[in-house]
């Protein structure tokens, strides 16, 4: 081994000192890293929605980081809640106890969201819900940390009940999942349907993972409803629609935001999905103020999976959190306070206005029908023009 000369040693030492000095200088100019968390179902039957939401949140972070004027370098911590309340509680506890995470964009499923709101409050972690629509998430308690950009299911049911009455439907059956979400759907569906003078022939609640629905559907067949109302999420909804057909039940199928998205049509198949009605809290992305901007950037980012119905809301929730951190700095309490003051904040889905419970009060419930394998706004559809007909129209 060659002996190191004094001159070589000095040169190496000098070089090391220079490197250190340069690194330090670079760090002085680097932006501080700020972490925020996204939580949604990335595995399991509802993962198409979770992945669409995750991509959209990631897009918001990417675009923010690409802007040279931002104060911080943002990192999105992504966690899978599997749409299960127990898993949701675990992952939210994990992010809430990590003080380097400043805010969160949580949950597609209402049953998961309602199980975790207390944790956000206990750990003082500000959050903006991107999809779950159960009213109690924002309204059961007045937690300053809890906000939501998506709508609530009351509006969907009110608009849906009115719409069905206008078409002349009178006899309904309610089929819901037995979670808090399904129960709430049933509650408001029943309230508005009965207010309209219509009749609910029967109500069925089943666990969301129940496979065989033949006993319930046989009972439903006996009741001869004109419409089967469904209050649940895509997997059970797809199973219900498929098994309805197999048992020869010809009833109009009516859903809500839980089946909105490409995943329902893919699971059922375009032929069986044809004519399905849904009431969702926003117009199509193409008609939103920033729709073109969002779809162009989503496409440019090269995501393989579609954003699904709530992707734009996940984008908006993330963007809102990032803009707030830019304004207040990465401090949970300051972010919470600033989110509470959001009024008329422009976004790609229109202005965001939080009420005193952190609920965005501007979503616009829109009526949709499946036509040729796509969700089409009712007014634009051939069903509205009379060219095609819904089932069992009186």
């Amino acid at each position, binding site marked *: 081994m060659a002996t190191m000369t004094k001159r070589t040693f000095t040169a190496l030492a000098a070089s090391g000192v220079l490197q250190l000095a340069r690194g330090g200088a670079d760090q002085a100019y680097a932006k501080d890293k700020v972490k925020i968390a996204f939580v949604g179902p990335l*595995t*399991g*039957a509802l*993962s*198409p929605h979770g992945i669409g939401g995750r991509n959209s949140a990631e897009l918001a972070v990417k675009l923010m980081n690409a802007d040279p004027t931002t104060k911080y370098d943002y990192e999105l911590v992504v966690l899978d809640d599997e749409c299960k309340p127990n898993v949701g509680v675990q992952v939210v506890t994990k992010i809430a106890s990590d003080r380097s995470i400043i805010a969160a964009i949580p949950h597609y499923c209402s049953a998961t969201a309602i199980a975790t709101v207390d944790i956000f409050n206990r750990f003082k972690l500000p959050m903006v819900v991107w999809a779950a629509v159960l009213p109690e998430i924002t309204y059961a308690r007045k937690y300053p940390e809890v906000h939501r950009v998506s709508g609530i299911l009351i509006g969907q049911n009110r608009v849906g009940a009115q719409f069905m009455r206008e078409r002349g439907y009178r006899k309904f059956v309610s089929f819901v999942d*037995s979670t808090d979400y399904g129960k709430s759907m049933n509650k408001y569906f029943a309230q508005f349907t009965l207010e309209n003078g219509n009749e609910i022939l*029967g*109500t*069925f*609640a*089943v*666990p969301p*993972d129940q*496979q*065989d629905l*033949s*006993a*319930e559907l*046989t*009972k439903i*067949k*006996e009741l001869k409803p004109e419409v089967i109302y469904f209050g649940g999420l895509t*997997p059970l909804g*797809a*199973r219900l629609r*498929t*098994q309805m057909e*197999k*048992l*020869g039940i010809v009833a109009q199928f009516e859903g809500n935001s839980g089946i909105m998205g490409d995943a329902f049509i893919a*699971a059922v198949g375009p032929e069986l999905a044809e004519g399905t009605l849904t009431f969702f809290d926003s117009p199509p992305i193409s008609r939103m103020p920033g729709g073109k901007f969002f779809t162009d950037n989503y496409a440019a980012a090269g995501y393989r999976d579609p954003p699904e119905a709530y992707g734009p809301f996940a984008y908006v929730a993330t963007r809102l959190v990032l803009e707030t951190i830019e304004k207040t700095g990465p401090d949970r309490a300051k972010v919470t306070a600033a989110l509470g003051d959001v009024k008329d904040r422009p976004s790609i889905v229109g202005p965001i206005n939080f009420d005193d419970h952190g609920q965005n009060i501007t979503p616009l419930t829109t009526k949709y029908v499946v036509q040729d394998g796509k969700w089409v706004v009712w007014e634009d559809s051939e069903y509205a023009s009379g060219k095609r007909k819904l089932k069992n129209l009186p």
Partner: protein
Amino acid sequence: MGMIGQHLLNGLMQGTIYGLVAMGFTIFFGVMNVIKFSHGDVLTLGAFGGLVAAWATHALGLPVGIQLIAVFAAAMLLSAVVGAGISHFLIMPLRNAPPLNMLLMTMMVGTLIREAIRLFFPNGTNPQRFPELLPSGGFNLGNVFVRNDGLILMVAGIASIAVVHWIINRTRFGLAMRAVAEDVETARTMGINYARVIPLTFALGSITAGFAGTIYGLYYSEINYGMGLLLAVIGFSAAIVGGLGNIWGAIIGGYLFAGLQTFVVAAIPSMSDYKNVFAFVLVIVLITWRPTGLLAERGSERV
């Protein structure tokens, strides 16, 4: 209750699937005194094997009939191989260990199979659409709507139960199985190849699981990695109610379980969410009243 016939038909279809699963449990217990808790996951694996066969034969443009045969063959072959493998590599080495070890081990194997499907099957976390290879539609028999595919599958299920019964009671292999079930040592001294009978018995029990998994996929048009969990619990409960170790007991237990679930929905308003609760309460009552199950005493011969 105006559609009693329809409810009965639904119960029969579900009961056939439960009975097939329960029959597997009873075969394992009858011969080896093993409660194989991976049975539901072997069923799931069989169904996924059938799905792959459906994809492959569809891609090759083969006729639907051939696709159907391939689906059943792949499901049953895969289940048989896995079942025999479990017995050869895991059950046999543990045959002298305490029964709890074997129970625990089969549970772990089940979890491994389930997680392997979830992690390694393409898009395995999501429910998979099972192709509809049987004639769709149906016909009315009075006020009962009979699904064509349901009818075919129910007949196939009942036929498979009859075939298993025939194998056990009318073939040399069945005779060897029964001899081993009765007394292992005596059977060995009579020249029965114990080391061959056990894996074959496990293969037979697992074939019924693969068959049930395929029926499940074809009937519901959907399979998922976790579907075997509840089916195994129900199948095991049905086997217990009927009398663990007794084939006819397992079948009766399966139909009883399905009948009760259907009855709860049909007869008691707004009770859909409680149908499993009712069914399991009945299991508890029956086991308390008759710990050996409904047929265990009458059918003294196991398997």
